[in-house]
């Protein structure tokens, strides 16, 4: 049998589209796999020369699914750049806003993007494996709840940030708008409802999906032994909005814990000529190629990484679920990629509980929403960090004496996960492709491997066709197309 080449050209959202290239050897087994990001938008260059205070609105446009994470991470970098400490009310409002963002974003991913695979079925017809198929399966009542709660999350963003998509809210030293009592009461109701919905979602996972897909979840083809990174508070509890960056090793030792200001000591990025996207790794361990092990500097971020890199949640219900999660796997860290989904659902519960706590905080309707920076005509620097839904996000700016941006460095969540996603695809393909047999079911199972990371593609898209449309070309050794598969 001749060597084959398979191209999977899905659309993944990192900064645009993505493509998977699989190369088979003459026996028809996988020889190598490449996950390519074929797009570059140049944010780090075109933000140079801009007003520093414009960064939260400019960087929001890196991603329209999680603009809130860029918006607030950028705002935190501005706090440092302007040497200004936000007021207590402002910090609480930002965290409230951020909790609502988590609810909306995680619901969007789980139900609209990921659930068709599990609820409708991995081997279901592509035309049924979509949100409409999910609605058929779970019934219109449940579907309406999903739609309602996703919209609830966005309603909170709109109350504070004016808009649901690309809300605008953050300023150095605070926020531009506070809450009045009427708005606070509305958000309180939303939070209570979201807690119930999160409980329902976790039950759906544990009672229906977990038993059905246990084998797949525990399958070695979907396992990667990497380092994990996430933000934690003083007691090593997960915090989305602020904290220290903690890294644990594949055998559950604390490898590092540091303030984001020192990120350059710990994180480095590599450039490969076949992708526009860089590959971050732990600097001290070094780049050992695309391989996951204790000696390799590859680490993961996102929901699974956060639970692995921490010692629980700060809220009661979420923390109980955290314990149950580890009871099930009976090991820590959990290396099974598909456990990302479970961790994501527990995070919805935590975000909803936190949202309720914050709306019941007496200070939340306070008027002191800003600290004004003292003017100084000097060059300054600011680094911000936040846990975006998809993982740790870092914004690093230098501004000149007029507070115009001079340098920008951004490390976004999906970039951290770029190497692990590549390896996950390779591992899944290796375990699935035998003797050159590639069919649509196999392709979808490869997709499942990287969909778990929720690589940031605008999720809605995947909703109606219900799958990432893939194109597969099989080439012989002479690069001649001999077979073609498309799953749509």
């Amino acid at each position, binding site marked *: 049998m001749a060597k084959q080449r398979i191209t999977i050209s899905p659309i993944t959202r990192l900064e645009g589209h993505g493509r998977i290239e699989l190369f088979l050897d003459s026996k028809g087994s996988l020889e190598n796999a490449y996950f390519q990001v074929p797009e570059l938008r140049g944010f780090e260059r075109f933000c140079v020369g801009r007003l520093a205070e414009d960064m939260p609105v400019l960087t929001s446009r890196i991603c*329209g699914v999680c603009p809130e994470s860029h918006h607030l991470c950028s705002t935190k970098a*501005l706090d440092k750049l302007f040497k200004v400490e936000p007021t207590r009310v402002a910090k609480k409002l930002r965290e409230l806003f951020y909790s609502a963002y988590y609810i909306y974003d995680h619901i969007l991913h789980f139900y609209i993007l990921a659930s068709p695979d599990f609820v409708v079925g991995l081997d279901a017809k592509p035309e049924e494996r979509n949100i409409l198929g999910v609605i058929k399966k779970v019934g219109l009542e449940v579907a309406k709840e999903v739609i309602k709660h996703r919209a609830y999350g966005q309603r909170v963003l709109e109350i504070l940030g*004016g*808009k649901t998509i*690309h809300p605008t809210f953050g300023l150095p030293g605070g926020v531009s708008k506070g809450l009045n009592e009427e708005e606070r009461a509305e958000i309180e109701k939303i939070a209570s409802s979201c807690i119930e919905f999160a409980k329902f979602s976790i039950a759906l996972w544990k009672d229906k999906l977990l038993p059905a897909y246990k084998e797949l979840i525990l399958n070695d083809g979907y396992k990667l032994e990497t380092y994990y990174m996430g933000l934690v508070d003083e007691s090593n509890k997960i915090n989305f909005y602020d904290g220290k960056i903690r890294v644990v090793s594949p055998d559950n030792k604390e490898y590092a814990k540091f303030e984001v200001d020192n990120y350059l000591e710990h994180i480095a990025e590599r450039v490969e000529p076949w992708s526009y996207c860089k590959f971050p790794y732990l600097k001290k361990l070094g780049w050992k190629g695309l391989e996951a092990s204790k000696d390799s500097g590859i680490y993961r971020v996102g929901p699974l990484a956060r639970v692995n890199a921490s010692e629980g949640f700060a809220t009661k219900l979420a923390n109980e679920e955290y314990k149950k999660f580890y009871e099930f796997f009976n090991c820590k860290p959990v290396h099974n990629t598909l456990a990302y989904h479970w961790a994501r659902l527990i995070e919805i519960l935590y975000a909803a509980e936190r949202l309720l706590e914050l709306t019941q905080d007496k200070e939340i309707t306070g008027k002191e929403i800003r600290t004004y920076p003292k003017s100084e005509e000097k060059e300054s620097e600011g680094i911000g960090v936040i846990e975006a839904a998809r993982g740790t996000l870092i914004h690093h700016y230098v501004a000149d004496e007029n507070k115009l941006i001079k340098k920008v460095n951004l490390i976004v969540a999906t970039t951290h996960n770029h190497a692990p996603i590549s390896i996950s695809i390779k591992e899944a393909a290796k375990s699935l492709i035998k003797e050159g047999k590639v069919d649509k079911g196999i392709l979808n199972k490869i997709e499942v491997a990287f969909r778990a990371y929720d690589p940031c593609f605008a999720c809605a898209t995947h909703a109606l066709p219900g799958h990432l449309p893939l194109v597969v070309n099989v080439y012989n050794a002479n690069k001649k197309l001999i077979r073609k598969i498309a799953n749509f």
Partner: protein
Amino acid sequence: MKNKKLKIAIYWFGSCGGCEVALVELNEKILELAEIADIVLWPVALDFKYEDLEKFKAQEIDISLINGCIANFENEQIAKMLREKSKVLIAYGSCACFGGIPGLVNLATKEEVYKIAYSETPSTINPKFTTPQQSYKADAHELELPEFYGYSRALHQVVEVDYFVPGCAPPIESTEKLLEIAKEFAAKGALPPKGTVIGSEKSVCDECEREKAEKKSISKIYRIYEKEADPKKCLLDQGIICMGPATRGGCKARCLNANQPCIGCMGALPEALDQGAKMLSALASIIGIEEEKALSEEDLKKIIDKVADPAGSFYKFSLPVGIISRKHTEKK
């Protein structure tokens, strides 16, 4: 054509995904869309052979809804293909309509973008200055990447566009209106006049409820971090740059409700050739105009210098459709 299900394609180019979320904002109305239309691509995946899109006959797709700017060769090829296959082509969102924020890349050169992204950023370790290659052999495997142009264009600068839905992301009212148009098209085959822009014919100021001074004059310009903005009064009257006067409405002035200035995402007003130049004109005309007698040339320059980044402030979303749409190089 009557009551036949429409074939709708939804596709993105250089974009952030916010426009897709904007479509999901239809919430339960998504089901109404599903009733009148089959979504044939959302998103379509194409490798460089395009045979999947080629399956469609000319004009077989009823509506193509496109978001994102044209940033590379692949975008351009697919845009042309979608145009040929579609009866109606719609630019959805500011990137497709005007280039959007990614259009600011036009202020730089491709070389600068590469140098910063792949070498100068402090976390990048790249001593040999490896850069992404359009064609690269990795262990005997050949891998390709689409060419990065280093500048962005709006959709209508590449193919003919029938309708425009501006906004970053388009406001829900616009998306609902679009759904009505699609329903009308499905039921009667009727369409609005070509070139229609879904939005207001008036400016954002027109929708903004803040109190505005009779006669505008700014004696000092403030940057938003410097001053507490009164949420009841016009921001321009308070010396904070707001794109309202030069920007099309239809967004209900939502950013203003969050006590933040308009940043111009709905694009230029109808008939205005260039959003940035219009804003520059409006703003410059009111700076220190009341104190003219007392101002020295030096004083005046000082006040105006507070507009520290005119290109970034006035062309945040519309540089690629500006009269001068890309950085010029003087022979020096």
